[in-house]
């Protein structure tokens, strides 16, 4: 039988596209409820200040205003703080410092954008007009804007419970083994670098609409979330104390997330609580300016690292010391990003036998920092792949050869790293070879010479990366401090006529689950893809879910669907055995038919489903009617996508402008269900990685004011900033999930930044430039060139 054109491996056109293309998507701000009010949140203009007095009386009298609330009002109702989902421990085993995080500030504000009060009014403009009438007396306090400021002796204290502004000082790895290895080193390569702070900027600003039904006492929250069940759990149990049975959270179409819509945000709790107070629906939608100062930011590390090498260029040990900025409060998953999603990746694709990493995470008077596409893994990869290039230079080895020499060999899987992870499969030589060929690495020197003749500096850079995703085995995560399970849930509901609705706990905000999952089910149950609908985002419909992040939707969510389908097929076989008067063991399910092995007797899928719902001829004494199965799947391990990215750049020495000429990605994401979608995911991830490497820079001034606070000052990648991105895959299968899938959402943003920076350093290396910081803006590149020329002139 020919492969299906709508099954696994086919570039099926997306089922969700029709509504998006015709303007019929339904995003949170598109939803309006009868009697709806608007909320405007008054935010602190100060990075750090005592809230001496808040007088809302004038605002409360303003035209169109229904209510004004402050932190004191929420406290009166015993509203709790926004919880942190991951407990990290100090080196001595004591728990991290975990300050309170009230949805509306109480007593003190701690960053520009911190929520001070909420005005509920008939219209959005009326609410904003009235907010200007709120009289707040602030007593400004010294502010901490950067990591460097936070750790200075005598620095201002943001939280009394966190001396030295330290949330935790954590470590991973064998320090003794690393120290011993460094003593034997032939060479040591060192690097100091900053992983630049980023602002996620999903195109849809966050929004939240709270609704309350006074008749039933039921609450509904419509929100821009990547994981509605998690919001229901966190907000219901910890913040508003609403039982799950009385709280529905619905994340409809969501316009991009990239991590920033994982977390439980204050505004969600504020509108839900306020709806209950005023007994009318309350909607809040962020302006982009508010997004800049209230969406969790990403990255923001300062790191020193050194790599010990033997005389053959083999890596002996790696020592890393990182300072990570967490912002003013702990966002939902902030604490695990610079620890378990970072240091555990420091083996990379290499056999480095000893690794030690220490991470001190600090509070600053800035927006909370949390996961942003890649989350910890781009930071680890950037550090490693920059350091390997430095090591190549120190040892006079070829950049590609030193990587090959240290790769984990193809026959070494499963491979236990010294930093807790066990890689199940991979072939790093294959992705490297394929990428070198696609990028014409061998022909580069000719292109460099040709560019030089035109007055341009051309460079090429490579990065061979790995990541851990498919988050996550709950028992492992729990042992490491996670406060939630990380399994996934699926319900496969077969209707009487054989059509299917799949309910998934994952959430699609661009990834195309409605199509990819439908492909799995179409192939798995042998039915046309048109007969499969995928439902996500609504806690009222879906049994449970942990949502979408960490490239988990296929490896974990997809596997849950497979497990539910297995149950459907198992039950279907029993029904078929009854109808066909055969033994259950003799029933085979193939191509949508239940057949008696070795005979031509069979029943179509639709006949079985009909029998299940119209059980006139049915084994009622041993089997329940109906064909509707739910599975919870908890993965056995993480998955480990890996690959090779190559960037080629041309620098204009007059202006410092870097033009990215070509970008090549060869990724091993495991089995590919929909190549078109996988390619699109890689494009998007690479674009964000290029954004980090060349364009995007979150800047606070020394007083804690956000200078890059709008799209006028924060550079989002545009179409003409990006080169054509060449994408290919090389597959090794994941060994511990039935689909063999690994995940593709984050590879692009993980592999690409070091490839770009390595290429720029390569371009500038003839001038003696050895390093350049991200983002490599024209000014930075120009300054590096000027500095090198000044140095050369002096020599």
């Amino acid at each position, binding site marked *: 039988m020919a492969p299906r054109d709508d099954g696994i491996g086919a570039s099926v*056109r*997306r089922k*969700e*596209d*029709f*509504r*998006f*293309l*015709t*303007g*019929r*998507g*339904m*995003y949170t*701000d*598109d939803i*309006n409820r009868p009697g709806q009010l608007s909320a405007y949140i008054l935010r602190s203009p100060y990075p750090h200040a005592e809230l001496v007095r808040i007088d809302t009386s004038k605002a409360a009298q303003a035209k169109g205003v229904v209510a004004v609330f402050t932190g004191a009002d929420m406290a009166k109702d015993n509203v709790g703080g926004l919880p942190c989902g991951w407990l990290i421990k100090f080196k001595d085993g004591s728990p991290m410092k975990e300050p309170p995080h009230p949805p509306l500030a109480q007593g003190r504000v701690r960053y520009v954008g911190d929520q001070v009060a909420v005005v509920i009014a008939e219209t959005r*403009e009326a609410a904003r007009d009235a907010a200007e009438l709120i009289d707040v007396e602030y007593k400004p306090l010294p502010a901490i804007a950067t990591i460097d400021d936070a750790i200075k002796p005598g620095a201002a204290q943001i939280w009394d419970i966190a001396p030295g502004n330290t949330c935790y000082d954590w470590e991973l790895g064998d320090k003794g083994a690393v120290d011993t290895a460094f003593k034997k080193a032939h060479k040591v390569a060192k690097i100091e670098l900053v992983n630049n702070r980023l602002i996620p*900027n*999903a*195109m*849809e*600003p966050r929004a939240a609409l709270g609704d309350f039904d006074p008749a039933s006492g039921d609450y509904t929250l419509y929100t821009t979330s990547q994981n509605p069940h998690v919001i229901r759990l966190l907000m219901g149990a910890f913040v508003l104390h609403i039982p799950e049975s009385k709280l529905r959270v619905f994340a409809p*179409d*969501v*316009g*991009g997330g*990239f991590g920033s819509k994982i977390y439980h945000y204050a505004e969600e709790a504020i509108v839900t609580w306020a709806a209950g107070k005023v007994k009318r629906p309350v909607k809040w939608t962020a*302006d*982009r*300016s508010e997004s800049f100062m209230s969406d969790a930011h990403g990255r923001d590390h300062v790191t020193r690292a050194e790599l010990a090498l033997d005389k053959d260029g083999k890596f002996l040990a790696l020592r890393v010391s990182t300072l990570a900025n967490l912002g003013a409060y702990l966002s939902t998953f902030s604490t695990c990003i610079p620890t378990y999603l970072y240091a555990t990746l420091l083996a990379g694709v290499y056999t480095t036998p000893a690794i030690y990493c220490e991470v001190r995470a600090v509070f600053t008077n800035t927006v909370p920092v949390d996961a942003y596409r890649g989350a910890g893994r781009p930071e680890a990869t950037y550090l490693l792949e920059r350091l390997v290039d430095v090591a190549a230079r120190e040892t006079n080895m070829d950049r590609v050869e030193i990587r090959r020499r240290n790769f984990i060999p193809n026959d070494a899987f499963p491979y236990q790293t010294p930093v807790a992870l066990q890689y199940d499969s991979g072939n790093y030589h294959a992705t490297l070879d394929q990428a070198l060929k696609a990028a014409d690495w061998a022909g580069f020197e000719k292109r460099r010479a040709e560019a030089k003749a035109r007055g341009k500096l051309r460079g090429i850079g490579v990065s061979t990366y790995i990541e851990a995703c498919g988050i996550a085995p709950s028992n492992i995560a729990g042992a490491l401090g996670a406060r939630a399970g990380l399994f996934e849930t699926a319900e496969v509901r077969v209707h009487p006529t054989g059509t299917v609705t799949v309910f998934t706990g994952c959430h699609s*905000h*661009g*990834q*195309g689950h409605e199509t990819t999952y439908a492909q799995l089910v179409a192939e798995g149950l042998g039915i046309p893809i048109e007969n499969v609908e995928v439902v996500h985002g609504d806690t009222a419909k879906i049994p449970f879910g942990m949502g979408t992040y960490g490239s988990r939707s296929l490896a974990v969510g997809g596997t849950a669907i497979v497990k539910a389908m297995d149950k459907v097929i198992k039950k279907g076989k029993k029904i078929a055995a009854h109808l066909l008067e055969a033994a259950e063991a003799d029933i085979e399910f193939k191509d949508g038919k239940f057949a008696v092995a070795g005979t031509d007797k069979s029943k179509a899928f639709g006949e079985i489903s009909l029998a299940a719902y119209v059980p006139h001829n049915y084994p009622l004494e041993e089997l329940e009617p109906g064909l509707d199965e739910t599975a919870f799947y908890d993965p056995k391990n993480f998955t480990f996508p890996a690959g090779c990215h190559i960037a080629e750049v041309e620098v204009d020495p007059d202006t410092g402008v870097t033009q990215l000429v070509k970008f090549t990605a060869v990724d091993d994401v495991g089995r590919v269900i929909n190549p*078109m*979608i996988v*390619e*699109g995911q890689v*494009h*998007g*991830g*690479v*674009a*964000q990685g290029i954004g980090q490497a060349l364009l995007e820079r979150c800047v606070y001034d020394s007083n804690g004011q956000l200078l890059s606070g*709008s*799209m*006028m000052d924060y550079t*989002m*990648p*545009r*179409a*003409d900033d*990006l080169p*054509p*991105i060449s994408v290919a895959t090389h597959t090794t299968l994941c060994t511990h999930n039935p689909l063999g899938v690994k995940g593709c959402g984050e590879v*692009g943003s993980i592999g690409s930044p070091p490839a770009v920076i390595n290429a720029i350093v390569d371009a500038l290396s003839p001038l003696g430039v050895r390093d350049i910081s991200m983002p490599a803006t024209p000014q930075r590149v120009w300054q590096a060139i000027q500095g090198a020329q000044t140095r050369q002139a002096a020599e």
Partner: protein
Amino acid sequence: MPNVSLTVNGKPASADVDNRTLLVQMLREKLGLTGTHVGCDTSQCGACVVHINGRSVKSCTVLAVQCAGADVMTVEGLAPDGKLHPLQEAFRDNHGLQCGFCTPGMLMSALDLLKNNPNPNEHQVRHWLEGNLCRCTGYQNIVKSILAAAATMRGGRAAAE
């Protein structure tokens, strides 16, 4: 409260608005046309692009009162009878959208490009999209979609002639 009457997607429409109501607010909140999106407040992102009197414009930077009597076309007007416009078809065929939020603005912007330049090259398409931000696709498949649509539309025109 001024009443603004205009033509939207070929049909007369009117609503009471404030002087400070933006066209995009009128479309979304008064006329229920939520296909046009708001992605920023500094006129950078282009999620709100519509056509006013045949030219692409950012509807977040125009007052509704300024549009009295104007002929406005939004994404909802691209496929009036449910049959996708060649641009919409091309975006679907080439995976030119992911989360879909920037898509209406991209389509309306691209439509203006192809009206003025039916045969753009890749560089011209990328340059034209200066006023439209997308965070999902890296633009690659958007550019591919627009080039594919241009070819189809040229072909269609040639066939019709």
